[in-house]
C-alpha cells in the first residue's frame, strides 16, 4: 500500500488503539474522538507521534477534536504544518 500521510496515521491508530480491527473499518472520516476511540490521553500520544513521525510542531490548541477527530483532519493538519515548515 502506498505510504501516504493518511496510511501512516491509519497504521499508527490501528496498532496503538484498535488492535485486531479490520483496517477497512477505519475510514478517512471515521470519528475518532467523538466516536469514543480516542480519549484525552490518547490525543496526547497522537500529538507526540505526529511530531516525531512528520517532524512538525503542533500548538497546544491543535490537540483537540477540531483537528484530530478523523484520519482526514489529522492528515490535513500535518500537510498544513509541513507547508508552513
Amino acid at each position, binding site marked *: 500500500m502506498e505510504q501516504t500521510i493518511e496510511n501512516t496515521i491509519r497504521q499508527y491508530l490501528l*496498532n*496503538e488503539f*484498535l*488492535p485486531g*480491527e479490520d483496517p477497512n*473499518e477505519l475510514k478517512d472520516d471515521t470519528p475518532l474522538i467523538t*466516536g469514543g476511540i480516542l480519549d484525552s490521553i490518547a490525543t*496526547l500520544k497522537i500529538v507526540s507521534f505526529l511530531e516525531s513521525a512528520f517532524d512538525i510542531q503542533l500548538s*497546544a490548541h491543535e490537540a483537540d477534536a477540531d483537528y484530530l477527530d478523523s484520519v482526514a483532519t489529522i492528515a490535513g493538519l500535518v500537510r498544513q504544518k509541513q507547508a508552513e515548515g
Partner: protein
Amino acid sequence: MTTTPSPCSLIGGLTGAATIGPGRVAIEDPGTGRWINYRDLAALTDRVRDRLVHAGVGRGDRVGLCLTKSIDAVAVIYGILKAGAVYVPVDDTAPATRNAYILNDCTVRTVVVEQDAAIPLRNALAALDAKTNPCLIQLPATEGNRLPITAALDALETKDYAPAATSVEPDPDDLAYILYTSGSTGQPKGVMLSHRNATSFLNWCTDTFQPTRDDRFASHAPFHFDLSILDIHTSLRHGATLVLFGQNVGKDPARLASVMAKSRLTFWYSAPSILSLLAQYGNLGSHDFSTLRMVLFAGEVFPIKHLRALKGMIPHPRYFNLYGPTETNVCTFHEIPATIPDDRTDPYPIGRTCSHLSTCVVEGTTPVDAGEEGELCVAGNGVMQAYWNLDKQTERVFFTDDQDVRWYRTGDIVYEDHAGAYLFRGRHDRMVKKRGYRIELGEIEASLYRHPEVREAAVIADANDAGVYIKAFIHMADGGKPSLIAFNRYCSEQLPLYMVPDKFIFGGALPKTATDKIDYQQLSGTGLPKSQHRTTNQHHGFQLDQ
C-alpha cells in the same frame, strides 16, 4: 479582607459580595477573554430569576442546565437559586439520551441549553415518552459583545416582558442542586443536596482554607461534578474571582499550565489525574506559579510519584488531599507534609473527619475496633437527603444507630492509623474512579446489553502506571468479533466518553461461578478464560498491509 458569608443559603453570599465589592471581578473566562464584575453578575442573575419565575418556576422546582462552562452557566445557576429552585447540571458533552433521562427523571420545569444542543435534547426527551415537557431557554452560539444569556434574555424580553420577581430565601432543608452520578442499575441516580448540605460544607471550607476576596479560584471541574461546589460557591460568597477552565483547555496539560500561570491563581482544586499530567507534560518549570497558595485534590488516589514531582516543581503552596463521595461532599481531609520522603511509595491518608461531620467505621452496622478495616460511614449536616425517586437505593445506603443518628454508608473500606487519620483500602462494590469520574461498572454493562447483538457482557476495572482503565468482555450472539470502531461508536452514543471501555475483549460464553453468575474473579485474574481471544495492546501483532 474576609467577608462573612450568610450562614445558610447560597444566594446570600453572592448578594453580600455584590454589596461590598460591586466593581470587583466575579468571574473570568480566559477561553473567551470575557469577565463580569459582581454588580453585573448580581443584575444578570436577577434577570435569569425573573425570566424563570415568569415561566412558572417556583420554589423547589427543578431547572436543568446543559451548558459549556461559561459566565452564562454560573449566572444561570444563581438565577435558578434566586428563584428558589433546584439546579440540575448535566454534562453537555454526554449523549443527549443520557441527559434527557436525567432531566426527565427529576421532571425539570425548564432547561437552559445551548442552541446546538436543543434539538437533540428535545428529540431525546420525545423518544423517552417523557413525564415532563420542559420549556427550553436557548442560548445562541455567539452574540458579539453580549453574553449569550443576555442575548437570549433580550430576545425573550421583546416578545414577552418578565416583571421583576423577588429572590426566594430558602429554608435550610430546601434542595439547592441535584447531582447525577453513575448508577449500578444502568441509569444515573440523582443525589439530592440541600442548602444546609451545601452551606455546612462551604462554612467548613471557610474555616479551613481562610479564603479572602483577593483570592483567585480555578474552576477546573465540570459543573455536574461535585468538586465544582467548592470552586463556584466558595469563590463567589467571599467576593473572590472565579477563573473558568473549560473542557478543551482543562484536559491539555501544556496549554492548561500556561493559562493557569497567566491567570495568577491562588486556589487550585481538581482530580489528581490532571495534576499528574501537568507534572509530566505541563513544562511547569517554565511558568510562574508564585501566587498559588492552595492545591487541593480529590476524587481518586494521587500516585506518590507524580505528587512528589508536582511538589518538586511547585513547592510553596499547601497541598491537601480531600476525600468524600458526592453524597457528602468532602468528609475527610489530609494536608500533605512539606517534604515527601524519597522512599515513600504508599499514598497519603484520606485523613481526619471534617469538623461539620462525624464518621465511623463499621462491619455491617457494628463499629469495628480501632485500627480494624471496615466501611466508612458519615453523618451530619453535609450528608445528602436521598437519591431522587429511588427509595430502595436510599434505604440501602443509610442506617440509623441506637442513638438515632442516621449514617450514610460510603461503600469505601478504610482503617484508621495511629495518628487518627483514615487510610483508603478499596471499594466493597463495583464502583470505580477513573480520572476522578465515578463510574458504576454495572451502568456500562447495562449499556452493552442494550446492543442488539450482545449476548453477554462483563466489565472490570484494572490499573496500571497511567491509572485506572476499563475492560469489557463481550460474547456476541454470533460468537464473532465485531468492528472495534463500530463498538466504540455505539458506546459513545450511550455513555459519556470517560465511561467507554478502554479495551474490548470478544469471545465465547463468559466464565460462570458455581451459582451460574459471571465469574468476575476469573475475568480479572491473570488467566483469561481459555475460550477468549484477546484484542489488547500487548497482543496484537497486527499489520495494516496484511
